[in-house]
């Protein structure tokens, strides 16, 4: 059941990517692709990446080495697209507030640089299997990319929570999905890249990754396409309290 090319394996590789292509199509149809431009590109990229890699894996005449070359190359491209998407999310969350717009830019620059150095340092420490060098390199790249993504998304959630920033529903869903994906992938790829696991355990970890992707894509459907419940939010009347004293203090401070 957990073996490669089992029914479950096929389903978990095909379904999330087809659903993602469907989601991208729906975003286009509903004219939401302008609002979620970077995610739209990401969704199409994922679908195209699958459309190339899946047949390559199934066609026995294609050498495994070629599959891993294409896989590693597409992973590089995916890293760039994901980082642009995260940068777009940062801009959306912080950019709405003049007081924090610059802070948001600085956060992603500095945190991105620190995470890149950390992830590279961790990546270089991972053991490389000389017989399947390209496979090892691909796992290390996955680990490095997911460490960066998880770190940046975590920073985004912590800073947004600290400042009590209001998220747009779609942006929140995208960030949540990326964060969950990156955390699960980071854990599984860290084990795959650093531990000498038996084949059966590796297969299970691969399926865990695929299942996570499936759940995340479903969550993206929910956050991007299902409208938020309208809650009656009345304007707050600020509490009355010692106003005269406060005004006196203000005037005294202003006159200094």
């Amino acid at each position, binding site marked *: 059941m957990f073996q490669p090319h089992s029914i479950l394996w096929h389903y978990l590789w095909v379904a999330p990517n087809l659903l993602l292509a469907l989601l991208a199509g729906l975003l286009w149809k509903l004219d939401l692709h302008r609002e979620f431009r970077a995610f739209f590109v990401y969704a199409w990229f994922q679908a195209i990446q699958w459309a190339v890699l899946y047949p390559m894996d199934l066609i026995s005449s294609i050498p495994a080495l070629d599959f891993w070359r294409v896989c590693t190359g597409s992973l590089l491209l995916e890293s760039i697209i994901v980082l642009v998407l995260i940068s777009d999310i940062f801009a959306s969350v912080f950019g709405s*507030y*003049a*007081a*924090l717009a610059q*802070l948001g830019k600085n956060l992603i620059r500095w945190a991105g640089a620190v995470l890149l150095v950390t992830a590279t340092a*961790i990546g270089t*420490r*991972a053991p490389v299997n000389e017989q399947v060098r390209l496979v090892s390199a691909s796992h290390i790249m996955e*680990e490095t990319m997911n*460490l960066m993504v*998880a*770190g940046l*998304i*975590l920073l985004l*959630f*912590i800073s*947004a*929570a*600290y*400042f*009590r*920033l*209001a*998220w747009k529903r779609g942006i*929140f869903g995208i960030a*949540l999905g990326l*964060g*969950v994906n990156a*955390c*699960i992938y*980071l*854990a599984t790829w*860290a*084990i795959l*890249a*650093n*531990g000498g696991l038996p084949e059966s355990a590796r297969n299970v970890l691969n399926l865990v990754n695929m299942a996570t992707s499936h759940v995340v894509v479903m969550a993206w459907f929910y956050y991007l396409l299902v409208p938020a419940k309208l*809650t009656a*939010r*009345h*304007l*707050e*009347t*600020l*509490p*009355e*309290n*010692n*106003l005269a*004293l*406060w*005004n006196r*203090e*203000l005037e005294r*401070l*202003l006159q200094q």
Partner: protein
Amino acid sequence: MTLAIVLVITAALSLIVILGAAVTRSLQISVGTSVGSQIQPLDVEAFRNLADAAEEAYLRRRLPTSEFHRVRRLRLRALAAYVRTAGRNAAVLVRVGQIALASSDPATAQAAEQLVNQALLLRRNAALVLVRIYVAMALPHANLAGGSVLEGYNQLSRAAMLLGRLQNPAVPVRISIW
């Protein structure tokens, strides 16, 4: 393998934080409590006194060194408590302002935007000043500057007052004292 374990634990903790943030967000949306009542009173004069460099210089001159360091630590602890409260109040006002941002009245929406931006600035400054306070606690000879929080606090008060006026034109001024 140790590295893998560290990464797995890091990933698990990150996942908990991210999912926690998601749950907190959904609770905030559904509960819809009156956030304005969460504002805590704050004595600006006492805060100014604690942040006053001249006051500290005076105490340094008047008190023996060991006594001065003890008093200074107590003052810094009190100052930190004020700054934390100011930061918490700013967070409440961010939410109040964000609710008011949806107002159909352009003047109210504009005042709310100003309030939110100033509250965010204050929250950022409060975090920076707290770091300085903790550094000053650890290093007795380090200087402390709390002026940015005080200034931010004053600006925030003016913005909150304006928003209060716009929301309740009949009432002369409805605004809390912190």
